Structure formats: structure tokens, C-alpha cells
């Protein structure tokens, strides 16, 4: 329901409440004045009846508006479903729809946006071309820029569709959107810029514009809380994600934005992304960004030799979060180094770091599993032994915890189990 309808309903409630207040005030005066109280009581009945009728009318109006909204939304959903089928056929090679009537434009654009969220490749390019040829991009741009007749929700929805459609023509709109006070508009702008880059065959002018857009976002509206969204949006740049993140990491940006770029690299193509993360690590990171870089390496599953020293140094960092991520990253380091370092980290002063080190050891294959068993039995630190034993139990599963299933169950445990079963 848009703001105008809500305002109308509250206006009606205010009018009814004012009428009730005035009526009740008049009745009170009638009771206080000398005269026949029977007349006053009749007036009360009439007034309360009037209140009931007024409230009923307001409720009826509200319910009617809700139903109207539901019917409209249901009709729109059906139109979107129909267009999903048409676009799916276009993706499969059917001819492009010749024209889209103005009443169908929004549904057609929405359906194409839904499809392009989950689809890439030649078929996606065919849909993008069809959307452009049908005039849907121009229509959505007009909606997104409209100053009259459309609520803010509809304008933002048009911008979001343009973002998913990755329309290069809308880049100036995206750039303006990232400066908006409305968080939804800002997100649409960032996502649109990033996805437009994904659709570009060559970086060129599009790359420059997208970087300018992200710089404007950093300067104007970015906050640390945007990090998860931004990392997902940067990953949306597809084959250009590594280039985009590498460029961002050369700029003076907020720490959380660097961290978002490193997060995005962690979900990218291992080789080039690992090189970019290594370059950032060698540049001297600390705190949140250092943890993000280590996490990215852990996700990529590799520690390039140039990054090894920085990763090993991070296991001694004063921040717990950095040491946790260092433990995870060490899984991708050569085992001659990783096993020893993780053994040391098992004795860390913080539970989370010990836990991460134990998990990392378990992820280091047969040698790691052996080290974990050895730590459970003979690590000099009692907390490390405890942690190793705990994780070992978890890894062995519930079967190992049941004495009756163990081949090595002693007579006492077998007796206990038998008693319990009895």
C-alpha cells in the first residue's frame, strides 16, 4: 500500500475521532446542564450508533483497499509468470517478442530481471538484447527518473529491475542512486554498476564509470554495515570481479570497503584473486582488513609463497579474529609449515583460536588428522589437549561415543552399557 492510501485512511480516522470527541463533549455538557436526563441518554445512544457506523465505514474502506491491492498484486503476479515463460522460450532460441504493450511493460521487465538473476551466458545475452529491443530499458529508465505520478517504491523498483538487467545505458542513473538517502536506492545503484561491468566484454569506459560510481558511494553513503552487501555486489561483477577489487584495494577507502573487496575476492577465481589478496597483504594490512584478507585466502584454499610470511605473522596478531582467520588460512599453506604452526595455535589463550586451529588441523588431510590425535594425547598444553579431544570426538561421530559400539570397550563400559539397555 502506498503512502497516499495510508495517509487517506489515517485522515479518515482523524476525522472520525474529532467528530466523536466533539459529540462526547456536547453530551457531557448536556448531562451537566439541568434538564431531562432521558433526552441526554437518547443522545448518547444516537452518538454511539454514529460512532459504530463511522468505524464500520472506515473498516470497510480499509478492507476494500487491501482487497484491491491483493487483486492487483495477483494480476501482476500472473502477468510476471506469463512473461517468465516467454523469456524462457526466448532464452531457448525462440524469436523475440515483437512489442510489449505499456500495461505489460513492468511485468515483462520484472520477469526478465528475475531470470537474469539466475542465468548467464549466451541465453542471458539473448534476453538482454530482447529486453533492450522491446523498449523495456527505456521504459524502466523513464520510471526510475519520474518525478510525477509514481511513488518512491515504484521508482526504486524500476531501478532494481535495471540493476538486474545490467543496462549500460542506466549507468548514470546508478551513479546518482548511490548518493541517495534511501538505502534501497543506494543498493540498487551499487548492484547495477557492478552487474553492468559483468556484462561488459571489455573494461574500457564502463570500468572507469563503475569505479567512479563506487568511489562516490564510498565518499557519500557507505557505512561498515554495508560490507556483506557490497561483497556480494562486487562478486556480481563476474569475470571482472578480480580487476574491480584490485582497483578498489589501490584506493584510499574505508577499512570495511577494503574488507568487502577482500571478501569478494575470496569467492572469485583462485589464481588471480590469490595474487591480488597477496599484494594487499604485502601492502601491510591490520585489524578487520587483515582478517578479511586471511579469510579470503582460506576460502580460496591457497597461500601463495609470497603471502606465507604475512599469514604466519598473523597467527601472533593481538586481535583474536585475525588469529582465527590465520588458522583457517594455514590449511592452504605447505604442510611442513602449517602443521607446526597449527600445533602452536592449539595452545592459544583464546578458545575461538584453539577451536579454529583444531578445525584447521582436521582439514589438513591424513597428516592433520594424525596431528589432531597426537594433540589429544600428548600436547603439552592441557587446553589444547582438551580441544583436540573434543573435536576428535565430534569428527568420529556419535558411533564412537557409544561404548557398546567400540571394539575397545572395556568390561566395565560393556557392563554399564548392558545395564543401561536392560
Amino acid at each position, binding site marked *: 500500500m502506498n503512502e497516499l492510501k495510508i495517509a487517506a485512511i489515517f485522515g479518515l480516522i482523524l476525522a472520525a475521532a474529532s467528530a466523536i470527541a466533539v459529540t462526547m463533549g456536547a453530551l457531557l455538557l448536556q448531562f451537566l446542564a439541568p434538564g431531562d436526563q432521558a433526552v441526554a441518554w437518547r443522545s448518547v445512544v444516537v452518538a454511539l450508533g454514529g460512532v459504530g457506523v463511522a468505524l464500520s465505514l472506515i473498516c470497510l474502506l480499509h478492507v476494500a483497499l487491501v482487497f484491491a491491492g491483493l487483486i492487483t498484486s495477483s494480476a501482476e503476479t500472473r502477468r510476471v509468470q506469463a512473461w517468465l515463460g516467454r523469456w524462457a522460450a526466448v532464452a531457448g532460441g525462440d524469436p523475440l517478442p515483437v512489442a510489449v504493450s505499456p500495461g505489460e511493460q513492468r511485468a515483462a521487465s520484472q520477469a526478465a530481471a*528475475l531470470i*537474469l538473476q*539466475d542465468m548467464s551466458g549466451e541465453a542471458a545475452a539473448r534476453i538482454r538484447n530482447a529486453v533492450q529491443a522491446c523498449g523495456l530499458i527505456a521504459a524502466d529508465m523513464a520510471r526510475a527518473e519520474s518525478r510525477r505520478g509514481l511513488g518512491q517504491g515504484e521508482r526504486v523498483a524500476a531501478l532494481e529491475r535495471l540493476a538486474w538487467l545490467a543496462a549500460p545505458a542506466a549507468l548514470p542513473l546508478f551513479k546518482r542512486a548511490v548518493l541517495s538517502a534511501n538505502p534501497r536506492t543506494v543498493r540498487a545503484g551499487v548492484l547495477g554498476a557492478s552487474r553492468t561491468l559483468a556484462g561488459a566484454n571489455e573494461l574500457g569506459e564502463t570500468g572507469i564509470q563503475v569505479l567512479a560510481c563506487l568511489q562516490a558511494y564510498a565518499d557519500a553513503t557507505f557505512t561498515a554495515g554495508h560490507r556483506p552487501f557490497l561483497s556480494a555486489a562486487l562478486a556480481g561483477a563476474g569475470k571482472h570481479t578480480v580487476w574491480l577489487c584490485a582497483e578498489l584495494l589501490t584506493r584510499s577507502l574505508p577499512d570495511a570497503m577494503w574488507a568487502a573487496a577482500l571478501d569478494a575476492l575470496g569467492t572469485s577465481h583462485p589464481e588471480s584473486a590469490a595474487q591480488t589478496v597477496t599484494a594487499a597483504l604485502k601492502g601491510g594490512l591490520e585489524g578487520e582488513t587483515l582478517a578479511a584478507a586471511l579469510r579470503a585466502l582460506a576460502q580460496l584454499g591457497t597461500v601463495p609463497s609470497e603471502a606465507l610470511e604475512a599469514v604466519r605473522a598473523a597467527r601472533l596478531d593481538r586481535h583474536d579474529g585475525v588469529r582465527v582467520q590465520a588458522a583457517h588460512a594455514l590449511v592452504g599453506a605447505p604442510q611442513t609449515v602449517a602443521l607446526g604452526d597449527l600445533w602452536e595455535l592449539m595452545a592459544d589463550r583464546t578458545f575461538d583460536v584453539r577451536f579454529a586451529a583444531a578445525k584447521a588441523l582436521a582439514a589438513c588431510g591424513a597428516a592433520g588428522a594424525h596431528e589432531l590425535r597426537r594433540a589429544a594425547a600428548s600436547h603439552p598444553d592441557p587446553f589444547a589437549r582438551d580441544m583436540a579431544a573434543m573435536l576428535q570426538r565430534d569428527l568420529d561421530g556419535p558411533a564412537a561415543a557409544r561404548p557398546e559400539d567400540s571394539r575397545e570397550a572395556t568390561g566395565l563400559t560393556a557392563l554399564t552399557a548392558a545395564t543401561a539397555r536392560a
Partner: protein
Amino acid sequence: MWVVDDSEAVRLLVAQTFERAGWRVETFEDLASTHAALAQQPAPAAVVLDIQLPDGCGLDNVSVFAEAGSAVVVVSNLVGAEQVERAFAQGAVDIVLKPVDMRILLARVERSAHWVRLAAGQGAEQRSVHAPERHSPPALDAVADALL
């Protein structure tokens, strides 16, 4: 083959792509309806399975289909290292990231189903009634070889 995905767009696209390639496709939007179907009919040759579904995690159900003899291809935009490990440990044959290129998905599912059939010791001529009727297997295998 079965497509288990809560996104109507994905169900439509995958169904359309695979039907054009000669597969018989059934689509499901949640795990409950998939399990109900599995209880009533033989397992399909291949299952394209999303991870995040309205009534549970697709990864927890990979083994159900794998043990029934289906080639399970996990498709999701939520694939990290842990999910990859879990998916393969549960018996998935392949993992494809969203957004999906339908040609690549088709090639990978074709190849996965082929491997699973070979592993089950069935010859190509002994295809079950639920296996795909491929129009041009050599051409599709060539696409798979080129893309993978």
C-alpha cells in the same frame, strides 16, 4: 530428470532447456513434494538440486537421491568451500554456481548422468524409462568435452 528449486524462473529455464534437449523433466519447489514423488516413483536419472529451499537445506538431501541412483548436480549461489565438501561427501556428482549458463548446466548434467549410469554398471542401451531420450548424444558429449 528432476529440478528442485524454489525459484520459478530457474525451474522454468532448466525445464525448457532440458526438454528441448530431449529430457523428460519434472519440477519441484520444495523438498517435501520431492520426497513424496520419490516415494511413489523410481528415482530420476538426474536431479538438479538447489541448496537453499523453503523447507530445508538441499545439501542434507543429496544422499537421498544419490543412494537412489540419481546423478545429483547441486546448483546454488551459496557455494563456499564447506558446501562443496559437504555436497561431494553426500554423493553429489557436480556443483554449478548461479547465475547458470544453461548450455554448461545441460552438458554437466548429461555428463554426470552418464558417469552415474556407468558406475551403476548399466550399458547405454539399458536406459531406464526415466532416463532421458537424447536427440543427439554425440553432439552433447562434444559440447560437454569442450566446456568442461
